């Protein structure tokens, strides 16, 4: 242990605000991009389901190889 008490750990000899700001922003932003990525995935899956419900699955030939980019507002 490099510190004698919890208070000393938080204060870090006066460098506490700098150290803790860095760690807070790091976890905030990494959390944000993770949340955003998970949400994008849910949105895409929900979209595909809606499309499938409205248009029944077509035959294999038309579905074989299509590289069309799907336009969507969440892209």
């Amino acid at each position, binding site marked *: 242990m490099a510190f004698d008490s919890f208070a000393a750990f938080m204060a870090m000899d006066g460098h506490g605000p*700098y*150290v803790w700001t860095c760690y807070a922003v790091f976890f905030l932003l990494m959390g944000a*991009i993770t949340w955003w990525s998970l949400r994008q995935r849910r949105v895409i899956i929900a979209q595909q389901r809606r499309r499938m419900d409205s248009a029944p699955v077509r035959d294999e030939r038309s579905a074989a*190889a299509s590289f069309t980019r799907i336009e969507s507002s969440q892209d």
Partner: protein
Amino acid sequence: MWQIFHKLGSPKWFFGIASALMPWLLGIGVALFMTGIVWGLVFAPQDYLQGNSYRIIFIHVPSAFLAQSVYIMMAVAALVTLVWRMKLADVFVRSAAPVGAVLTFLALFTGAVWGKPTWGTWWIWDARLTSMLILLFLYFGVMALGAAISDEKSSARAVAVLVLVGVVNIPIIKYSVEWWNTLHQPATFKLTEKPSMPAEMWVPLLLSVLGLYLIFGWLACLRMQTDILAREGRTRWVKELVQARGN
């Protein structure tokens, strides 16, 4: 040989591999990273010169390290896009760019906050800091260009060219601390020498770098899977997959 190569490029094959890998990447990544930063924050000794502010290193160096290696990975993928027109490579470039931008911003931000108590200033326009700022703008450029062109093939090619042009910035970042006078300290890890820090400092640092690498791998897989689901929505396997999923 070519068969393996084509299989590697198949979105369906990748989707399965990614699903199998992702729990391991996230689990081991978070475990290594948290071990690294708890060790660094609580147990590592104080720096004799910088005091406790140096503990920022345990997130600053991983962020900066990843920010650059993500760009190098994107450059390799961009080359593959241009030479072999492999769709999966373009999927990677698009999925990794926002994560790279976040990591670059974090490297700059934590560096600035570390600079204040250590150098007495938040920012100087020296070679290392400026070239990192250019890296951030390159990531933004890749994201903007990818979103601006709607045709998938021309978009992939334009993005790949931009990524490859921007790769010239990477050696500049790397050697900026050696070529020019700067406040920034030289690299902590070198392949050829022992680290100049004691083991109680560099071992947790190494753990946090490795951990963040694996966490990036998880995020990249997750985002690539999402992009594949969006692009391949008309194929049978994606339809079956979407139907099979509960959420």
